[in-house]
């Protein structure tokens, strides 16, 4: 993963506003919480999230 994330990591490290962030942990945290939200939406509606209605 490290090699393929080089551009993003470089960009984050070179910026003083984000230089100290732990990119790996944040990225995994973001991914897992998005997956959890997606599963929750599907469980609530008994339908894939993509089919959840605009109106709700």
């Amino acid at each position, binding site marked *: 993963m490290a090699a393929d994330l080089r551009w993003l990591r470089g960009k984050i490290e070179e910026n003083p506003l984000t230089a100290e*962030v732990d990119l790996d942990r944040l990225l*995994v945290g973001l991914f897992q*919480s*998005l997956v959890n939200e997606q599963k929750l939406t599907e469980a609530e509606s008994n339908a894939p999230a*993509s089919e959840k209605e605009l109106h*709700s």
Partner: protein
Amino acid sequence: MTSSAAEQEKSGPIRCLVIQLARLGDTLQSLMALKAAKQLYPQLQIHFLARERFADAAKRISWIDEVITLPSDKILGPFIQGQKNQTEALLDLSEWIQPLVKEPWDMLLNWSYSEASSYLTAILPATIKLGYTRAKDVQMACADGWSHYMQAIVQGKVDQNIHLTDILTTQLLTALQIHAGDPGDVGETPVNSKGFFNLKTVTHPFISQWRESTKKWVAFQLGAGRDDKAWPAEKFAELAEFIVSRHSDWNVVLLGGTDDRSREAQFFETLKGRLSDSSRIVSLVGQTQFDLWASVVSKVHWVIAADTSVVHLASVLGTRVLNLSIGPVQWSETGPYGNGHLIIDVSNHGIPESEWVYAVWSHGVAERTQVIERDFTQHLTQQIGEKALHSMKVMRSRIRPTQDGGGVVYEPLTAHALELNEWSSTVMGQIARAWFCGWVAPIGHEINRDTISPDLIIELRKLAESSEVLEKICNEAEKAANELTKKSQKLHSDHLMSLDDKQVIQSIALKMQELDKLIDRMGQTQAPLRAFSQMSKVMMNNLSGEHLSEMGREGAICYKNLREGVKIFKEWVDFTLKMARPRAVKSGFAPLVSIQNPN
């Protein structure tokens, strides 16, 4: 334009990224808040990030510079379905993030208030961040005071009455005022709904029929955000029958998504054989993509709906709403925004009957179209009887003048005794304004003497005592935190110190722990005080200082804020109790209220 605003405009645009990963209702509330800010700070360059399926509303707004979408189905779907492993899916996610980190943002507003959005906020570079983010140790962190409030009070389910749109607006405007100076002078121009969306031209038989018709329309949105918040289709059908049979100039249009088809079927099944002219009810259920849906909502005179995004769409478009508050809904936070919307809340009485809804709607219609001969209570008593009237609360929305604090307020149209949670939510709203806006409402503002019941007085007497104790505890905690700051400032290191110094610091820390426990206990024993224990926890979790002295200083500020909040709370308790005391009246005049003194 003030000189500071003129200077800011000259200095170039403020690049602002707004993260809104929640549903359409939240998206619409965010857009309302952004419109107010854009009007005051035209130099705001707004980039709006939303989930792909809820992005249409933002895409139809001309003053949004860019809409970025999160294709959650594309990125997460293959992983959830087992077609990709986590490493592969993470690469897709990081590829999506790359354009967002190319250039730092001047301002990043995380208005999703969710776990996922907090991680994204921490990854993206921005000079100013508002909302949830992550600290260096990846723990959840609040970037500003209003975020503390959102976490502790709004998401902590503490009663409060500031509408979410007002929280977002105030949060953004306060940050802009601090970082970009006072806004330009826009005179008395109100933020209004005209031309909010640039909708695509829609060709649909219903819209064509509309142009030729002089009839009036009321839209029913059949579903709700959740099943337990929905009003049954049978009730909607009964309401439609009342409207169509009693008002020859009114027609009904049904709205809903494809997953509301069964509700639509139930609606027409209930009406079978009961209407002489079925052409006066048109169904667009399952046919309304955003442009048609918004076109219809903007053209109808009324929208009747439970807690669902159409309430916010109608608010944005300036269409009157009759909102049926069913199930776990905080209408004071998410009700229709603007003047003259109505809310029916039946709280513990299940769901509103169709006759009740009809009675409220018909009064709302009469209010606008003719001189009202009866007031609201008389109208409802005649239509549904006194017993039914006492089973529901009806509120009407009003935008407060700026000098009264601004924002939307819901005023009761039906007389009922003020419950403790309603009283404390009003007070909490005022404390929040004092904490984050530096504006304090006159004590007792928006509390009506006639609504103070003996039960409320008993509860407030208990609170008078405990709030006094809580104020003292916060005062002690503030002193202890100041002592910690003073002591630790004299140390050369937080780790290497004399045994005496260590003992003193340990004893201060122990005292602070005990005081924290006491604050927590006060919140557990009396529900209205939970606001302070929740705020205390959230603020303490967000201390960012690395040294003891910094943490002591930050802690002292937190306790000071709490103490000031409790002081305002206590002033309201005392004022309400004083207000409820029987008044001396001139002989020959009947007293306005008959409140029994519990003593």
